[in-house]
């Protein structure tokens, strides 16, 4: 599995396209048969407690794309704090299992692992 992380609009899906995946093969924040899933952070916004379940499901994907959401001011609201932390921890676990981890910076892939 390849994990692609980065800021909002940093070129994550363009990088997946460069690997040969088409937009039809990319699911926007939901789990189905697609080899690629993006906006994984949205899955945790609805319910930040389902990290374990998601982790197992995402391991079977070829490409997992997730926004980095942990910078800026820590929110005052408890649900938002839990959400950001759940996304961060999920990415750490996914990265540990991934064959390759890429962080997009201004559209440029920076290889973190693999």
């Amino acid at each position: 599995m390849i994990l692609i992380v980065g800021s909002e609009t940093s070129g994550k899906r363009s990088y997946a396209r460069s690997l040969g995946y088409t937009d039809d093969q990319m699911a926007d924040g939901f789990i189905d048969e697609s080899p690629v899933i993006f906006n994984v952070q949205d899955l945790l916004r609805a319910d930040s407690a389902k990290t374990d379940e998601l982790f197992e499901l995402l391991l079977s994907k070829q490409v997992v794309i997730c926004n980095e959401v942990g910078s800026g001011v820590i929110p005052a609201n408890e649900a938002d704090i839990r959400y950001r932390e759940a996304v961060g921890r999920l990415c750490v676990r996914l990265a540990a299992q991934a064959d390759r981890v890429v962080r997009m910076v201004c559209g440029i892939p920076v290889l973190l692992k693999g």
Partner: protein
Amino acid sequence: MKILLYGGSACGKSTFAESILLSMPEPRVYFATMRPWSKFDLERVERHRTLRKDKGFGTIERYRDIETAELGAGSILLEDLCNLVSNEMFDDEGNYIDCYEKVERGLSSILERSENIVLVTNDVGADGSIYSEYTQSYIHTLGRLNIFAARSCDIVIECAAGMPAVIKGDISLLDRSLSERVIDMVRSA
């Protein structure tokens, strides 16, 4: 040489940008895009003007319409894309404008006309918050412009805690003393 400096707020990119500009050929020009709104802003602008004058930098102040800015000859430090996008996104009556194409054209024109330039931009898309439609559009527009600028520049450097990380390009192409300084900073990190 065209260089993009990217990072969060107060990560040391402006100071670093100035040292890069100082390594570039004279005359050197600071291209400011911030629109001063308050007395506090004006005081800050004044302080920066004095600082830059001491360094021998000329100044261009243009918070919108950079495509038509007169550049003259010389090396440029343009600071920054985030202010430029926020100034272009709303007209003086407060009406929203989809400004991506216009700012891309402006940047493209500035980049074409300058042999040596440093562009400064921010990372605004990594805090996980959901904002109003306009702010989301701002984040998206700036993200796309950052991608455009990175593609158009020879070197892309990300700053964190004042430390530069080279994302794209060969920094040995920079002025020797500066590239050695970057290499030292990267090594000591």
